[in-house]
C-alpha cells in the first residue's frame, strides 16, 4: 500500500461503498483503504468489485467484495450484514451507485426506463441504504454519505431526470442530518465531477463536453480524477475531522459550481 501523505484517518473504521466496482466509487474505496478503513466493495457486477478488493489487498489493505444491486432491499441489507460479520460493525455507508445518465434528452423525451432507473438507484436505493445502515451507524456514531451532483442544485437541460433525483438525495441528506444528528449520526453529500468510464461515454454526445462548456466553467481547467480528487473528500467526511459537519453538500468539481 502506498504511504498516505497524511495520517491514516479511518484506521479501524469500516466503510461500505456502493457502486465501487469502478469510477468514483472505486476511487473512494481506494482512498478509504489507503486511510486504514476496512472497505466493503458493494457492486452490482461482483467481478468488478472483486478486482477493486484485490487491488486494495495488493496495497496491503482490508477489503471485502459483495454483490449488491442497490435497487434490491435484501442486497443492501446483506451488504451491511456482511460488513458487520467480517469487520465487527459499520461506521460509514457511502451510497455512490447510480444508473447511467444516458444520452442528453429534454424532459419530454427522457425514456421512461431512464426515469425509472434514476428513481430506483437514487431515491429508492438511498432509502434502502439509510434504513439498512441506521442501527449500526447509531451504535457507532457513524456517517452516511450520498453522492449527488451540482445538477441536483441547478437542474440540467441535458439530463433533467438526473437533476431531479440528485436533488431528492440532497434533501434526504439534509433531513436525515436533522433527524439523526441528535443520535450522533452525521449525513452529508459529495457532488463530484470526475472522469469515469460512464462519463466518458456520456461525453461523446453531450454539449457540455463537445462545446467545451464544462471546461470553460472550471477554474482548475481539468476534469477530476476519482481517487486523488474525490476520494480524499469522502475520507474527510467519513473521518472524525468532520465531526461538526452535517447536512452539507461539498462540491468537488474544480470550482465549476460556486453557488454555495
Amino acid at each position: 500500500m502506498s504511504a498516505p501523505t497524511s495520517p491514516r484517518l479511518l484506521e479501524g473504521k469500516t466503510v461500505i461503498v456502493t457502486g465501487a466496482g469502478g469510477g468514483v466509487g472505486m476511487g473512494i474505496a481506494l482512498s478509504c483503504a489507503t486511510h486504514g478503513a476496512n472497505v466493503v466493495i458493494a457492486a452490482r457486477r461482483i467481478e468488478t468489485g472483486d478486482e477493486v478488493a484485490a487491488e486494495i489487498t495488493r496495497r496491503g489493505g482490508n477489503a471485502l467484495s459483495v454483490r449488491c444491486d442497490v435497487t434490491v432491499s435484501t442486497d443492501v441489507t446483506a451488504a451491511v450484514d456482511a460488513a458487520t460479520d467480517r469487520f465487527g460493525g459499520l461506521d460509514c455507508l457511502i451510497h455512490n451507485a447510480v444508473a447511467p445518465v444516458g444520452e442528453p434528452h429534454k424532459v419530454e423525451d427522457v425514456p421512461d426506463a431512464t426515469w425509472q432507473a434514476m428513481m430506483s438507484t437514487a431515491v429508492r436505493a438511498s432509502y434502502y441504504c439509510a434504513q439498512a445502515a441506521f442501527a449500526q451507524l447509531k451504535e457507532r456514531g457513524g456517517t452516511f454519505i450520498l453522492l449527488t451532483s451540482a445538477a441536483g442544485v441547478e437542474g440540467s437541460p441535458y439530463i433533467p431526470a438526473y437533476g431531479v433525483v440528485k436533488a431528492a438525495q440532497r434533501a434526504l441528506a439534509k433531513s436525515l442530518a436533522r433527524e439523526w444528528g441528535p443520535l450522533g449520526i452525521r449525513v452529508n453529500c459529495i457532488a463530484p465531477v470526475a472522469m469515469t468510464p460512464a462519463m466518458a461515454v456520456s461525453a461523446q454526445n453531450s454539449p457540455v463536453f463537445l462545446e467545451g462548456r464544462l471546461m470553460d466553467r472550471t477554474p482548475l481547467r481539468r476534469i477530476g480524477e476519482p481517487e486523488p480528487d474525490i476520494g480524499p473528500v469522502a475520507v474527510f467526511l467519513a473521518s472524525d475531522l468532520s465531526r461538526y459537519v452535517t447536512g452539507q453538500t461539498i462540491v468537488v468539481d474544480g470550482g465549476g459550481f460556486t453557488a454555495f
Partner: protein
Amino acid sequence: MPLDEKRRLATSRRIVVAGTSGPGAGIAAALAADGARVAVLEPGRDGQGNAAPQDESIFEVATDFSSAAAVGASVTAAVEALGGIDQFVYAWYPDELTGATTFTDVSEEEWARACEGALDAAWWLVRALIGPLRASRGGSIVFVVPTVGLTGSSGFVMLSVVAEGLRVLAKGCGRCWGEDGVAVNTLATSPALWVEPDHGQRLLREISLSVPAMGRVGDPGRDLAPVIELLGTDEAHFLTAGTLVTDGGLWMGL
C-alpha cells in the same frame, strides 16, 4: 393590479393541482376570484370531477395520477375544458407527506407510494403539459413547495425529498423550455402552511433563529396567489427556473 393586467387575467386559463385542499385551495379560489378560469386536479376525489360547466370560473376535473397515461388523460381533460392553458400550478402533497413521521418508521410501501409517487406524478404532469403549453405559444408553470426541501426537516423527510425534487424539476424544465416561451418557477413557502398545526411551530424553529420578518407564515390566497398571478403575466416572461422564497422572510438562505 393594473386594469390591463386584470383584463389579461380574466381571459387566462389555469390548472391548479390540489385546488380543493390545503394551500392549493386558497390559491385556486384567489385566481378564480381575480378572473381566471381554473380547472382543479385533485387525486383521491373519485366521482367529484365533472364536466366543465362553461359558466363556472372554477371546476374540478376527474383526476388520476396512478400512471403516465392517467396523468396525461387528466391534463387533456382539463385543457379541453379550459379551451387551452396559460398557467399550471402544482400544490399537491398527499397526507402521508405532510404528516410527521420518523424516517426509520417509514415503510418501503409508504416511501414508494407517497414520496416516489409524488415525484412520478410531477414528472408525468410536466411531460403532459408541454404540448398544450406550446400550443398556447408559451405559458407558466409554478411549483409551490414548502421550504423544507431547502432546509431539510426532521419528521418530514419525505416531504423535503419531494419538495426539493420538484424545485430542481422546475429548473430542468425551465432550462429545456425557455425557447418555447414556457417559464417554470418555484414558490418556496413556509412549511407551517402544509403540515399539521402542532408541528408548524417546531418546523419554524428548526429553520430560523427568528420569527418571520412579516410576523406571519402567509395566507395562500392573499400572499401566494398574487405572486403566482405575477408569474403568469407577460411582465414576468423573463423570469424562469427561479426560486421565489415567499415565506414572509423566514428562511433567507438564497
